[in-house]
């Protein structure tokens, strides 16, 4: 077993840390405060290949592995949770399923744009009545001459307004249950497709989370992803990969809050000494660090397994479950150690705490992760 990070990973981390520190962190508070999608950051990320890390070079990507990708989301989220999820949803939920399930023509048509970051990707599974129970899809795609007619709506879709390509799940044959769900690649310019209400959120406020509305949209047959009826399975496999990204986002948020706290407790003085001199502070920090390291091991392990082609579904679920809960715990403790200052927007800690909460909810709630893990044990 080799726990060393490789020379390539070292070089990558050096770059991504500097990028996050200089380009992402200075915008984080403003992006949150103004609920503003940081499009200029996406352009900068695109320029250096961060929007196509695990996409092969022949499709315009960087040819990296999932570990580099997880490190990228981790380091970006350490500075700004919004930026982390933009990359994660784009890469894991849109580019990855096209790479994994798309035809050669689909890969050639869509991946270069996505990998270069010229086009942002999104993924639409959730509906008002299909959340955790994703099989309850009400959006329909009825076969017609040369394609399908898509009708319905999706909610809570990350990157919605800014995306150019969407992976959309819809019912093609209700009588077949989950086997009647199919996946489609939908382009922004499709007639009858519009963006609905934008959510006002507790955290990751810069990421655009909106409703998608489909009214008699014609989707050409060439844009069916995988085979007819494969949609549910594609969505579940896509989320397995996506969970590594969200786990990395949670890890980054936890690490970010911990690093800020270590700095703060050394500076802030009460009773004539720095907070770091109190044993309670020391023990809290020790627990936080231990949990963050444990989360990191789970995240990197799941990412590594995915790149090795080893089944990783339960590993990704464990990584996401644990990292998300650690992120919530560590950011909450970080606010506590900052006292009243931590509760104000003078410090990034309260934002990190708000950002952390979503990692326990999207791409499968913590309850869903427990279902996946126990199903693996009890099968």
């Amino acid at each position, binding site marked *: 077993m080799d726990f060393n990070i490789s020379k390539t990973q070292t070089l990558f981390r050096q770059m991504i840390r500097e990028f996050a520190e200089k380009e992402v962190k200075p915008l984080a508070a403003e992006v949150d405060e103004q609920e503003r999608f940081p499009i200029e950051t996406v352009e900068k990320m695109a320029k*250096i*290949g961060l929007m196509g890390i695990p996409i092969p070079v022949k499709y315009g*990507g*960087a*040819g*990296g592995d999932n570990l580099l990708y997880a490190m990228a989301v981790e380091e970006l989220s350490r500075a700004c949770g919004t930026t982390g999820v933009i990359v994660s949803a784009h890469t894991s939920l849109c580019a990855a399923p096209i790479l994994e399930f798309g035809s050669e023509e689909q890969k050639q048509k869509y991946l270069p744009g996505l990998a270069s970051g010229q086009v942002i990707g999104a993924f639409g599974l959730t509906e008002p009545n299909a959340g955790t129970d994703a099989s309850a899809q009400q959006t329909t795609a009825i076969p017609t001459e040369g394609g399908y007619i898509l009708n319905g709506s999706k909610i809570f879709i990350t990157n919605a307004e800014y995306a150019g390509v969407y992976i959309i799940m819809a019912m093609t044959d209700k009588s077949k249950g989950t086997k009647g769900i199919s996946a489609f690649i939908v382009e922004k310019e499709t007639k009858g497709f519009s963006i609905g209400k934008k959510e006002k959120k507790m955290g990751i406020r810069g990421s655009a989370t909106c409703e998608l509305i489909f009214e008699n949209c014609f989707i050409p047959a060439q844009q069916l992803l995988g085979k007819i009826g494969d949609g549910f399975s594609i969505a579940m496999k896509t989320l397995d990969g996506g969970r590594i990204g969200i786990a990395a986002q949670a890890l980054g948020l936890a690490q970010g809050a911990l690093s800020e706290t270590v700095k703060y407790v050394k500076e802030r003085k009460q009773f004539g000494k720095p907070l770091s001199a109190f044993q309670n502070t020391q023990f809290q920090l020790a627990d936080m660090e231990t949990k963050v390291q444990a989360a990191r091991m789970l995240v990197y392990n799941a990412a590594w397994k995915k790149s090795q082609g080893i089944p990783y579904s339960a590993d990704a679920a464990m990584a996401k479950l644990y990292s998300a809960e650690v992120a919530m715990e560590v950011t909450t403790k970080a606010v506590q150690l900052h006292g009243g200052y931590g509760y104000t927007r003078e410090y990034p800690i309260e934002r990190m705490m708000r950002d952390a909460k979503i990692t326990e909810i999207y791409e499968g709630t913590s309850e869903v992760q427990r279902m996946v893990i126990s199903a693996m044990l009890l099968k």
Partner: protein
Amino acid sequence: MKIIVCIKQVPDTTEIKINPVTGTLIREGVPSIINPDDKGGLELALRLKESHNAHVTVLTMGPTQADAVLREALAMGVDRAILLTDKKFAGADTLATSNALAGALRNLDYDLIITGRQAIDGDTAQVGPQVAELLDLPQVSYLENLEVKENNLFLLKKQTEEGYQLLEADAPLLVTVLASSFKPRYMNVKGIVEAYSKEVEIWGFDKITVDEENLGLKGSPTKVDKAFAKGIKGAGEIYEMDPEEAVGMIMRKLKEKYII
């Protein structure tokens, strides 16, 4: 157009501490980086690669660990990387370093040689100009901007204390650049992924054209007499008073300290 950028691996001096007893630098645990001015040089070269299809070679002299800065340069987009390393080069001062670099440059093709203005550890700003002299090349130091006019003719903007100078020079020439003038790009992800599968050429003494006498400790006339940390001065005192009072106060203080 062929460009060679000389880069130096330096300790990140923002993280360096000085041993208060011996006065020497504590290098342990301090990360090594590309000298900031040299990164500016790489940026200039890579811009010329994009605009004029230039071929960019990066050259460093140093121990085998200096390989790391060459990988970083490859990840930024340079085409070729050469590491000058040999026991014979060890212990070099600026002159011996310049001799080794010039020895390698004699065996390379170039229209433009770019060095940083100065290294953040040695801080002498001598190597660039010395290399130019050794190769008998025109040199423009403190470069702020460079335009390619026509074949082999460059228009150069040079920083001076009073302002700037605009100069024209024919290739081949050597320029020394400032980090502040060419904000370096980040390494790109594809470049990083490929950096360690690319070749870094290792050049020893036998690959370069120079007299052995002029290399390493033997070729180094500089002798370090003593290294010491500057003592920290006490904080100044601030007085607010009108100018007339102030003159009297300053005079009194100077007399108190027997300065006047």
